[in-house]
């Protein structure tokens, strides 16, 4: 069984995002870039399924600029068998990403596609679901537990009301939530090994994908600031402050 993992590069989650003064975007020059944390979890899950003997091959794919190769090498160092780099000069929106991933799915014929439930840059949480719909296959989003038996995946999902368990026939799309697993650390010898693993490059144009980038962003702004609050020194003062605000 083959597993395809969508593996996006984003601004590291520890970076304090700054909006450019002219409102044309956020500052991404010179900031640390890292794998999307949810995609690390996706890759980890795929690797564990391979280690359990459920899967035989794990392919990582990313859609991004030429310098995203290093990012894919990171995925290979973590343990993926090979990588596919779909190159594009400009950032794309989720519908376009899903259409591009569908092309890879048609070519690679994976039984499972695992993606992060959202990328922490645009926070859209759309691509996995869009891929499942376009592919006409099931989706199990926000997964916190995945069990594969034969051609069926039993997935526990983190939903607002608690934990939902669903069963989906493979092939299927799974998107990961935080508590699915803890991704492994990459060891130095694996970084060396990753250099010789196969990395295929295709251009987004060559996939023949119709652009779904229908939306334009006309402005970027920092969030409204909350005004500075007061510090109280003990419980009676706290209660008095709450009463003064009419909250008690």
């Amino acid at each position: 069984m083959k597993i395809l993992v969508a593996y996006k590069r984003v601004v590291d989650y520890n970076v304090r995002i700054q909006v450019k003064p002219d409102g044309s975007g956020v500052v991404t020059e010179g900031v640390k870039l890292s794998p999307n944390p949810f995609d690390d979890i996706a890759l980890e899950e795929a690797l564990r399924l391979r280690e359990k003997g459920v899967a035989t091959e794990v392919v990582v794919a990313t859609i991004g600029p030429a310098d995203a190769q290093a990012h894919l090498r990171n995925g290979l160092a973590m343990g993926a068998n090979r990588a596919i780099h779909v190159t594009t000069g400009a950032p794309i929106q989720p519908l376009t990403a899903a259409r591009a991933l569908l092309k890879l799915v048609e070519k690679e014929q994976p039984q499972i596609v695992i993606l992060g439930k959202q990328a922490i840059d645009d926070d859209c949480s759309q691509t996995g679901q869009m891929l499942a719909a376009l592919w006409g296959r099931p989706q199990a989003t926000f997964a916190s537990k995945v069990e594969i038996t034969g051609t069926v995946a039993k997935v526990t999902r983190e939903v607002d009301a608690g934990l939902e368990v669903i069963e989906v026939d493979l092939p299927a799309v799974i998107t990961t939530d935080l508590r699915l697993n803890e991704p492994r650390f990459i060891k130095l010898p694996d970084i060396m090994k990753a250099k010789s693993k196969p990395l295929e490059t295709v251009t987004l144009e060559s996939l023949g994908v119709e652009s779904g980038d229908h939306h334009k962003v006309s402005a970027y702004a920092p969030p409204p600031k909350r005004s500075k609050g007061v510090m109280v020194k003990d419980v009676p003062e706290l209660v008095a402050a709450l009463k003064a605000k009419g909250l008690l």
Partner: protein
Amino acid sequence: MSKILIVAEHANGQLNNSTAKVLSAAKQMGASAIEVAVFAADPAAIAAQAAQLDGVTRVRAVANAANANALAAVLAPQVAALAADYTHVLGPSTTFGKDLMPCVAALLGEAMVSDIMKVHGAHRFERPIYAGNAIITVECPATRKVIATVRNASFAATGNGASAAPVEAASVNATLPSHTRFIELKAGASDRPDLQSAARVVSGGRAVGSAENFAIIYKLADKLGAGVGASRAAVDAGYAPNDMQVGQTGKIIAPELYVAIGISGAIQHLTGIKDAGTIVAINKDGEAPIFEVADIGLVGDLFKIIPELEQAL
């Protein structure tokens, strides 16, 4: 003129409050009609509730045994089939809407706007990116359908109107898959107010120290009549269940009063509470980032402060 379809969220025969919040956003889009679609095995009671909401012009009830549980793969083709009559299809930015709406958009070949937090017209919206550290204005082409989710915390729920809108049974022409099956929902049984709609919320963080110690958070919450939340650290450590997580990847909430106890205030947590009316922070570390957003801060040992606070209430 816009014609809007809202996909209702419901459970156990009750319309979820998120639907009335999406309606509030829809009313700001200058529509000539706002209709609500209810997909259920037996939609009558839920449709009647939706019909009461002020501003709803019609409710379309789609009865089908396959709709007994909300499965995106089953609902999406039905929503997409209904969408032909509308310029906008909206859902809540809850796990229900997040699961479903991108499928609807993809089936229709449309892009989607996630988490609308402000409406500037029928085709212009604000939404957060980077955990709410930047707000973008998204322009949707007027020639295409708008498919979007609406962030609950950004809109007040619309109340009931003077008269009920008509409810009509709708049949949809869509092939429904059998490849996805609902097994069970393990819901956290609780008599406490629902976290996402509670006027008051008390949350505990890593400093609470254990699942047993979380009792102190529940006790204070009960005294305040509050819902209970938790930071990601507390959920990861097993002190509280996942459905209590507040933050970028958990629930985004906007209570009148938010009490953060033993929560340091990572950016990802602050995202979830930015729209709260008053934020109270209690933490033993006076340098914790939570104090940067708190309206009222108290530095000290939570195990001393909370019992004392409970006494004082």
